[in-house]
């Protein structure tokens, strides 16, 4: 079963997100990021490194805007200190959509053959960051409530994209 990129974008908008801060990831570039770049309802801010995005999203929250950080899991791993200080200790609802590049379809991230993928969820758990796997079509409905909960708690959330949306 395919994961619908259109449905994901609709859910993002339903969650009142209008800013997308992004660094391309092969899992999401073609069918999420490129359509977002063309979408007049979304403002995409391209960053050079993912930790910049954690800060930009935090500051956008301070101005009353909702934002999504669209990155690859390697960028998430690279942003741990910014997440520590900016999102967790700073209590900012940084909402991240993170592509799990190379994850085997239907295999839980912690069971992946790839070391980098296996460590993602345990690291998020250790940091106390809520996360959800978006891999099956029905998982798309997790997005809006997860974003709403992040803003209610003023804490970050990670939406792990388990396969390439089409």
């Amino acid at each position: 079963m395919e994961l619908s990129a259109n449905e994901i974008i609709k859910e993002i908008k339903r969650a009142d997100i209008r800013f997308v801060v992004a660094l391309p990831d092969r899992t999401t570039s073609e069918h999420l990021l490129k359509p977002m770049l063309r979408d007049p309802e979304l403002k995409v801010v391209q960053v050079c490194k993912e930790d910049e995005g954690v800060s930009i999203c935090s500051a956008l929250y301070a101005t009353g805007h909702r934002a999504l950080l669209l990155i690859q899991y390697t960028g998430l791993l690279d942003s741990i200190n910014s997440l520590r200080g900016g999102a967790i200790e700073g209590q900012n609802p940084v909402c991240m959509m993170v592509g799990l590049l190379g994850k085997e379809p239907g295999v839980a991230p912690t069971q992946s053959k790839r070391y980098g993928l296996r460590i993602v969820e345990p690291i998020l758990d250790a940091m106390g960051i809520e996360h959800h796997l978006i891999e099956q079509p029905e998982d798309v409905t997790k997005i809006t409530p997860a974003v709403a909960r992040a803003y209610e708690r003023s804490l970050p959330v990670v939406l792990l994209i388990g396969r390439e949306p089409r």
Partner: protein
Amino acid sequence: MMKRDECFKVLARHRTDEIVVAVYQAAQEWIHISPSDFNYTFTGAMGQGSSHALGLALGRPDKRVVVLDGDGSLLMNLGSLVTIANAAPKNLIHCVCENGTYETNGAVPIPGVNRLSFTALARAAGYPKSYEFDKLEDWEREVGKVLKEDGPILVDLKVTPGEQYPEDFRRLYSIEFRDRFRKALQK
């Protein structure tokens, strides 16, 4: 070279309702020199001041945003120069307090001290304007004009430590003050 706190006092005299993002030593001094609910010191991690400033500038294009960055801090997030230039916020003024050291972390010299040029880096990244100031009288004469110009602008402030101000990291990262900032913006 200018004493940093004297340089900030000049900026404070010209400040109207600008948001000011300040990091580390600059923040410790700025909150005393120009107290305001529009001071934003909640940058979370070293190097991130310029990125927070960009988010604020994009979220509130009707307000001017000044960031008092550090040289060591900016070196940790040099890509933000390209990100900012690409986003091209007209309301962002990026000041770098260049003292040549990691002052908060033992005053060890930064790599490239006395060789690198922050204005050249900014211009190469795509900032349309940049300035360098190392004399207080020049800064005093130009700051009013700089604050009104379209950004993004990089301003390299050549500084040395001035008067000692009390350090209070808890205040800098306080959630209470962050919420006050949010409320002030909503008014």
